[in-house]
Protein backbone atom coordinates (compact mmCIF):
# COMPACT_ATOMS: atom_id res chain seq x y z
CA UNK A 1 0.00 0.00 0.00
CA UNK A 2 1.17 3.50 -0.76
CA UNK A 3 -0.05 5.06 2.45
CA UNK A 4 0.12 3.60 5.90
CA UNK A 5 -3.23 2.50 7.30
CA UNK A 6 -4.99 5.38 9.05
CA UNK A 7 -5.69 4.37 12.63
CA UNK A 8 -6.95 6.43 15.55
CA UNK A 9 -6.26 5.45 19.18
CA UNK A 10 -7.87 6.83 22.31
CA UNK A 11 -4.77 8.68 23.52
CA UNK A 12 -4.22 10.61 20.30
CA UNK A 13 -7.93 11.14 19.79
CA UNK A 14 -8.15 12.86 23.16
CA UNK A 15 -5.17 15.07 22.33
CA UNK A 16 -6.72 16.03 19.00
CA UNK A 17 -10.10 16.67 20.57
CA UNK A 18 -8.47 18.97 23.14
CA UNK A 19 -6.84 21.02 20.37
CA UNK A 20 -10.11 21.22 18.42
CA UNK A 21 -12.19 22.18 21.47
CA UNK A 22 -9.73 24.92 22.35
CA UNK A 23 -9.67 26.22 18.79
CA UNK A 24 -13.46 26.64 18.83
CA UNK A 25 -13.15 28.83 21.94
CA UNK A 26 -10.03 30.78 21.05
CA UNK A 27 -11.08 31.52 17.48
CA UNK A 28 -14.71 32.27 18.42
CA UNK A 29 -15.68 29.70 15.82
CA UNK A 30 -19.02 27.99 15.29
CA UNK A 31 -17.63 24.64 14.27
CA UNK A 32 -14.17 23.15 13.90
CA UNK A 33 -13.53 19.77 12.39
CA UNK A 34 -10.67 17.62 11.16
CA UNK A 35 -10.91 15.38 8.14
CA UNK A 36 -8.34 13.12 6.58
CA UNK A 37 -7.47 13.68 2.91
CA UNK A 38 -9.74 10.79 1.93
CA UNK A 39 -12.78 12.48 3.41
CA UNK A 40 -13.10 10.60 6.71
CA UNK A 41 -14.14 12.72 9.67
CA UNK A 42 -11.61 12.46 12.49
CA UNK A 43 -12.83 14.93 15.12
CA UNK A 44 -15.34 17.75 15.43
CA UNK A 45 -16.25 20.38 17.99
CA UNK A 46 -18.68 23.27 18.42
CA UNK A 47 -22.21 23.46 17.11
CA UNK A 48 -22.02 20.14 15.25
CA UNK A 49 -25.60 19.03 15.83
CA UNK A 50 -26.96 21.38 13.20
CA UNK A 51 -24.52 20.36 10.55
CA UNK A 52 -24.08 17.29 8.34
CA UNK A 53 -20.44 16.61 9.22
CA UNK A 54 -20.15 13.46 7.09
CA UNK A 55 -21.13 15.31 3.91
CA UNK A 56 -18.98 18.29 4.86
CA UNK A 57 -16.01 16.01 5.42
CA UNK A 58 -16.36 14.39 2.02
CA UNK A 59 -16.86 17.68 0.18
CA UNK A 60 -13.96 19.37 1.97
CA UNK A 61 -11.65 16.51 1.01
CA UNK A 62 -12.91 16.75 -2.58
CA UNK A 63 -12.23 20.47 -2.50
CA UNK A 64 -8.70 19.99 -1.18
CA UNK A 65 -8.08 17.25 -3.74
CA UNK A 66 -9.24 19.50 -6.59
CA UNK A 67 -7.16 22.42 -5.35
CA UNK A 68 -4.16 20.10 -4.99
CA UNK A 69 -4.70 19.06 -8.61
CA UNK A 70 -4.66 22.71 -9.70
CA UNK A 71 -1.50 23.31 -7.65
CA UNK A 72 0.22 20.44 -9.43
CA UNK A 73 -0.66 21.88 -12.83
CA UNK A 74 0.88 25.20 -11.75
CA UNK A 75 3.94 23.37 -10.41
CA UNK A 76 3.07 24.45 -6.89
CA UNK A 77 3.46 21.96 -4.10
CA UNK A 78 0.06 22.64 -2.48
CA UNK A 79 -2.28 25.50 -1.76
CA UNK A 80 -2.35 24.88 1.94
CA UNK A 81 -4.97 27.48 2.85
CA UNK A 82 -8.42 28.26 1.45
CA UNK A 83 -10.96 30.79 2.59
CA UNK A 84 -14.57 31.11 1.45
CA UNK A 85 -16.57 34.13 2.50
CA UNK A 86 -20.34 33.90 2.67
CA UNK A 87 -23.02 36.34 3.75
CA UNK A 88 -23.35 34.81 7.20
CA UNK A 89 -20.88 31.97 7.45
CA UNK A 90 -17.26 31.82 6.43
CA UNK A 91 -15.07 28.78 6.11
CA UNK A 92 -11.33 28.53 6.56
CA UNK A 93 -9.66 25.35 5.32
CA UNK A 94 -6.09 24.52 6.24
CA UNK A 95 -4.05 21.54 5.12
CA UNK A 96 -2.00 20.29 8.07
CA UNK A 97 1.24 18.44 7.37
CA UNK A 98 -0.13 17.45 3.94
CA UNK A 99 -2.07 14.78 5.80
CA UNK A 100 -5.23 16.10 7.41
CA UNK A 101 -7.52 19.05 6.83
CA UNK A 102 -8.47 21.52 9.55
CA UNK A 103 -11.77 23.26 8.87
CA UNK A 104 -13.05 26.28 10.81
CA UNK A 105 -16.54 27.65 10.24
CA UNK A 106 -17.16 31.08 11.74
CA UNK A 107 -19.49 34.06 11.52
CA UNK A 108 -19.29 37.79 12.29
CA UNK A 109 -18.44 37.07 15.94
CA UNK A 110 -14.94 36.28 14.78
CA UNK A 111 -12.61 37.54 12.07
CA UNK A 112 -10.34 36.05 9.44
CA UNK A 113 -7.28 37.48 11.18
CA UNK A 114 -8.11 35.84 14.49
CA UNK A 115 -8.96 32.52 12.83
CA UNK A 116 -5.71 32.49 10.86
CA UNK A 117 -3.70 33.23 13.97
CA UNK A 118 -5.33 30.47 16.03
CA UNK A 119 -5.26 27.98 13.16
CA UNK A 120 -1.52 28.45 12.77
CA UNK A 121 -0.91 27.50 16.39
CA UNK A 122 -3.34 24.59 16.30
CA UNK A 123 -1.77 23.29 13.06
CA UNK A 124 1.63 22.95 14.68
CA UNK A 125 0.17 21.01 17.58
CA UNK A 126 -1.89 18.78 15.32
CA UNK A 127 1.08 18.10 13.11
CA UNK A 128 3.04 16.81 16.08
CA UNK A 129 0.18 14.58 17.23
CA UNK A 130 -0.36 13.07 13.78
CA UNK A 131 3.34 12.46 13.31
CA UNK A 132 3.44 10.54 16.58
CA UNK A 133 0.30 8.66 15.60
CA UNK A 134 1.71 7.61 12.25
CA UNK A 135 4.97 6.38 13.70
CA UNK A 136 2.95 4.34 16.20
CA UNK A 137 0.90 2.79 13.41
CA UNK A 138 4.03 1.97 11.44
CA UNK A 139 5.50 0.02 14.36
CA UNK A 140 5.53 -3.70 13.76
CA UNK A 141 3.19 -5.65 15.93
CA UNK A 142 0.39 -3.07 15.98
CA UNK A 143 -2.18 -5.71 15.16
CA UNK A 144 -5.46 -5.11 13.41
CA UNK A 145 -8.67 -5.96 15.29
CA UNK A 146 -9.78 -7.52 12.06
CA UNK A 147 -7.11 -10.17 11.90
CA UNK A 148 -9.41 -12.57 13.71
CA UNK A 149 -12.72 -11.95 11.99
CA UNK A 150 -14.19 -14.97 10.30
CA UNK A 151 -16.00 -15.39 7.00
CA UNK A 152 -19.10 -15.92 9.09
CA UNK A 153 -18.70 -12.48 10.74
CA UNK A 154 -18.55 -10.93 7.31
CA UNK A 155 -21.54 -12.92 6.02
CA UNK A 156 -23.58 -11.91 9.07
CA UNK A 157 -23.26 -8.26 8.09
CA UNK A 158 -25.23 -8.97 4.96
CA UNK A 159 -27.97 -11.12 6.40
CA UNK A 160 -30.85 -8.75 6.30
Amino acid at each position, binding site marked *: *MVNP*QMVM*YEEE*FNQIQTVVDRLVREANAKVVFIVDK*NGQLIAASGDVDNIDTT*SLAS*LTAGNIAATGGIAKLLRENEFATQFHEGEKANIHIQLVGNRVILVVIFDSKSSLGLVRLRVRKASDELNRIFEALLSKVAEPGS*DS*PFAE*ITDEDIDNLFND
Partner: protein
Amino acid sequence: MSFINYMAREINCKIVYYGPGLCGKTTNLQYIYERTNPDAKGKMISLATETERTLFFDFLPLSLGEIRGFKTRFHLYTVPGQVFYDASRKLILKGVDGVIFVADSQMERLEANQESVENLRTNLAEQGYSLEKIPYVVQYNKRDLPNVISVEELRPLINPMNVPDFEANARSGVGVFDTLKAVSKSVLNELKRGG
Protein backbone atom coordinates in the same frame (compact mmCIF):
# COMPACT_ATOMS: atom_id res chain seq x y z
CA MET B 1 -7.04 3.17 2.65
CA SER B 2 -9.46 2.22 5.37
CA PHE B 3 -9.60 4.21 8.57
CA ILE B 4 -9.84 2.34 11.88
CA ASN B 5 -11.01 4.51 14.75
CA TYR B 6 -10.49 2.69 18.07
CA MET B 7 -11.98 5.58 19.98
CA ALA B 8 -15.31 5.62 18.14
CA ARG B 9 -14.98 1.87 17.44
CA GLU B 10 -15.54 2.44 13.78
CA ILE B 11 -14.02 1.24 10.58
CA ASN B 12 -14.43 3.36 7.45
CA CYS B 13 -13.82 2.11 3.93
CA LYS B 14 -13.98 3.81 0.55
CA ILE B 15 -15.55 2.16 -2.47
CA VAL B 16 -15.43 3.71 -5.93
CA TYR B 17 -17.79 3.01 -8.83
CA TYR B 18 -15.85 3.32 -12.08
CA GLY B 19 -16.91 2.98 -15.72
CA PRO B 20 -17.57 4.83 -18.97
CA GLY B 21 -19.96 7.79 -19.27
CA LEU B 22 -23.67 6.94 -18.87
CA CYS B 23 -22.99 3.33 -17.79
CA GLY B 24 -25.12 3.71 -14.64
CA LYS B 25 -22.73 4.46 -11.76
CA THR B 26 -24.91 7.23 -10.33
CA THR B 27 -28.01 5.08 -10.91
CA ASN B 28 -26.43 2.33 -8.75
CA LEU B 29 -25.95 4.81 -5.92
CA GLN B 30 -29.44 6.24 -6.30
CA TYR B 31 -30.97 2.77 -6.05
CA ILE B 32 -28.93 1.96 -2.94
CA TYR B 33 -29.94 5.29 -1.43
CA GLU B 34 -33.65 4.69 -2.10
CA ARG B 35 -33.63 1.16 -0.74
CA THR B 36 -31.61 1.69 2.41
CA ASN B 37 -33.08 2.15 5.83
CA PRO B 38 -32.83 5.86 6.85
CA ASP B 39 -30.80 4.94 9.98
CA ALA B 40 -28.15 3.27 7.88
CA LYS B 41 -27.46 6.02 5.38
CA GLY B 42 -26.41 9.63 5.26
CA LYS B 43 -27.28 12.23 2.68
CA MET B 44 -26.44 11.46 -0.93
CA ILE B 45 -24.42 14.20 -2.55
CA SER B 46 -24.19 14.63 -6.31
CA LEU B 47 -21.86 17.16 -7.84
CA ALA B 48 -23.41 17.18 -11.29
CA THR B 49 -23.89 19.49 -14.26
CA GLU B 50 -27.26 21.04 -15.09
CA THR B 51 -27.93 18.10 -17.38
CA GLU B 52 -27.32 15.68 -14.50
CA ARG B 53 -23.98 14.42 -15.75
CA THR B 54 -21.55 13.77 -12.90
CA LEU B 55 -19.11 16.66 -12.75
CA PHE B 56 -16.90 15.63 -9.85
CA PHE B 57 -18.42 12.80 -7.82
CA ASP B 58 -21.47 11.36 -6.10
CA PHE B 59 -21.10 10.40 -2.47
CA LEU B 60 -23.19 8.14 -0.26
CA PRO B 61 -22.22 7.12 3.28
CA LEU B 62 -23.65 3.76 4.39
CA SER B 63 -23.34 1.82 7.63
CA LEU B 64 -23.49 -1.92 7.35
CA GLY B 65 -23.68 -2.97 10.98
CA GLU B 66 -21.19 -4.16 13.55
CA ILE B 67 -18.38 -6.60 13.24
CA ARG B 68 -16.58 -7.62 16.46
CA GLY B 69 -17.88 -4.48 18.16
CA PHE B 70 -16.73 -2.16 15.38
CA LYS B 71 -19.26 -0.22 13.32
CA THR B 72 -18.53 -0.74 9.64
CA ARG B 73 -19.08 2.29 7.46
CA PHE B 74 -18.69 2.38 3.72
CA HIS B 75 -18.30 5.58 1.77
CA LEU B 76 -19.49 5.04 -1.79
CA TYR B 77 -18.18 7.34 -4.51
CA THR B 78 -18.73 7.48 -8.25
CA VAL B 79 -16.32 9.05 -10.72
CA PRO B 80 -17.36 11.22 -13.67
CA GLY B 81 -17.34 8.81 -16.61
CA GLN B 82 -16.79 11.24 -19.47
CA VAL B 83 -13.31 10.89 -20.96
CA PHE B 84 -12.25 14.53 -20.45
CA TYR B 85 -12.78 14.41 -16.67
CA ASP B 86 -9.72 12.24 -16.17
CA ALA B 87 -8.03 14.60 -13.70
CA SER B 88 -11.07 14.33 -11.41
CA ARG B 89 -11.18 10.54 -11.67
CA LYS B 90 -7.60 10.33 -10.46
CA LEU B 91 -8.42 12.41 -7.39
CA ILE B 92 -11.39 10.26 -6.44
CA LEU B 93 -9.32 7.08 -6.58
CA LYS B 94 -7.05 8.39 -3.81
CA GLY B 95 -7.32 6.20 -0.74
CA VAL B 96 -9.70 3.73 -2.38
CA ASP B 97 -10.30 0.36 -0.69
CA GLY B 98 -12.38 -1.35 -3.37
CA VAL B 99 -13.52 -0.73 -6.94
CA ILE B 100 -16.71 -1.68 -8.78
CA PHE B 101 -16.40 -1.45 -12.55
CA VAL B 102 -19.81 -0.79 -14.09
CA ALA B 103 -19.83 -1.87 -17.72
CA ASP B 104 -22.48 -0.77 -20.20
CA SER B 105 -23.57 -4.03 -21.87
CA GLN B 106 -24.77 -2.38 -25.09
CA MET B 107 -22.96 -3.39 -28.27
CA GLU B 108 -22.04 0.18 -29.21
CA ARG B 109 -20.39 0.85 -25.81
CA LEU B 110 -17.93 -2.05 -25.94
CA GLU B 111 -15.00 0.12 -26.90
CA ALA B 112 -15.86 2.73 -24.26
CA ASN B 113 -15.89 -0.03 -21.61
CA GLN B 114 -12.51 -1.32 -22.68
CA GLU B 115 -11.01 2.16 -22.69
CA SER B 116 -12.42 2.80 -19.25
CA VAL B 117 -10.94 -0.41 -17.78
CA GLU B 118 -7.55 0.58 -19.20
CA ASN B 119 -7.99 4.08 -17.77
CA LEU B 120 -8.81 2.57 -14.36
CA ARG B 121 -5.70 0.42 -14.51
CA THR B 122 -3.50 3.42 -15.42
CA ASN B 123 -4.99 5.74 -12.81
CA LEU B 124 -4.73 3.13 -10.04
CA ALA B 125 -1.10 2.51 -10.97
CA GLU B 126 -0.41 6.25 -10.68
CA GLN B 127 -1.59 6.06 -7.07
CA GLY B 128 0.56 3.01 -6.45
CA TYR B 129 -2.28 0.47 -6.56
CA SER B 130 -2.68 -2.43 -8.92
CA LEU B 131 -5.94 -3.73 -10.33
CA GLU B 132 -4.72 -7.27 -9.62
CA LYS B 133 -4.36 -6.62 -5.90
CA ILE B 134 -7.16 -4.27 -4.96
CA PRO B 135 -10.65 -5.64 -4.08
CA TYR B 136 -12.38 -5.45 -7.44
CA VAL B 137 -15.69 -6.63 -8.94
CA VAL B 138 -17.40 -6.11 -12.29
CA GLN B 139 -21.03 -5.35 -13.03
CA TYR B 140 -22.56 -5.82 -16.50
CA ASN B 141 -25.28 -3.22 -16.40
CA LYS B 142 -28.32 -2.53 -18.62
CA ARG B 143 -29.02 -6.24 -19.19
CA ASP B 144 -32.67 -5.32 -19.88
CA LEU B 145 -31.83 -3.46 -23.10
CA PRO B 146 -32.31 -5.25 -26.45
CA ASN B 147 -28.90 -4.64 -28.02
CA VAL B 148 -26.66 -6.14 -25.33
CA ILE B 149 -23.62 -8.36 -25.80
CA SER B 150 -23.83 -11.72 -24.03
CA VAL B 151 -21.94 -12.02 -20.74
CA GLU B 152 -19.93 -14.91 -22.22
CA GLU B 153 -18.64 -12.55 -24.89
CA LEU B 154 -18.16 -9.59 -22.56
CA ARG B 155 -16.29 -11.42 -19.82
CA PRO B 156 -13.00 -12.08 -21.65
CA LEU B 157 -12.98 -8.50 -22.92
CA ILE B 158 -13.98 -6.59 -19.78
CA ASN B 159 -13.08 -9.03 -17.04
CA PRO B 160 -10.10 -11.09 -18.21
CA MET B 161 -8.94 -11.44 -14.57
CA ASN B 162 -12.17 -13.28 -13.80
CA VAL B 163 -13.02 -11.32 -10.67
CA PRO B 164 -16.57 -11.78 -9.28
CA ASP B 165 -19.03 -10.36 -11.82
CA PHE B 166 -22.75 -9.65 -11.83
CA GLU B 167 -25.48 -8.94 -14.33
CA ALA B 168 -27.52 -5.90 -13.44
CA ASN B 169 -30.23 -3.48 -14.35
CA ALA B 170 -29.42 -0.62 -12.02
CA ARG B 171 -32.59 1.30 -12.81
CA SER B 172 -34.82 -1.51 -11.46
CA GLY B 173 -32.18 -2.58 -8.93
CA VAL B 174 -31.37 -6.04 -10.26
CA GLY B 175 -27.84 -6.96 -9.22
CA VAL B 176 -27.11 -3.65 -7.48
CA PHE B 177 -26.85 -4.97 -3.93
CA ASP B 178 -25.18 -8.21 -5.04
CA THR B 179 -22.39 -6.17 -6.58
CA LEU B 180 -22.01 -3.96 -3.51
CA LYS B 181 -21.98 -6.96 -1.16
CA ALA B 182 -19.32 -8.71 -3.21
CA VAL B 183 -16.93 -5.77 -3.12
CA SER B 184 -17.65 -5.07 0.57
CA LYS B 185 -16.83 -8.68 1.46
CA SER B 186 -13.67 -8.48 -0.53
CA VAL B 187 -12.66 -5.23 1.24
CA LEU B 188 -13.31 -6.75 4.69
CA ASN B 189 -11.35 -9.86 3.73
CA GLU B 190 -8.48 -7.64 2.71
CA LEU B 191 -8.62 -5.93 6.14
CA LYS B 192 -8.58 -9.32 7.77
CA ARG B 193 -5.36 -10.07 5.94
CA GLY B 194 -4.03 -6.77 7.30
CA GLY B 195 -4.04 -4.97 3.93
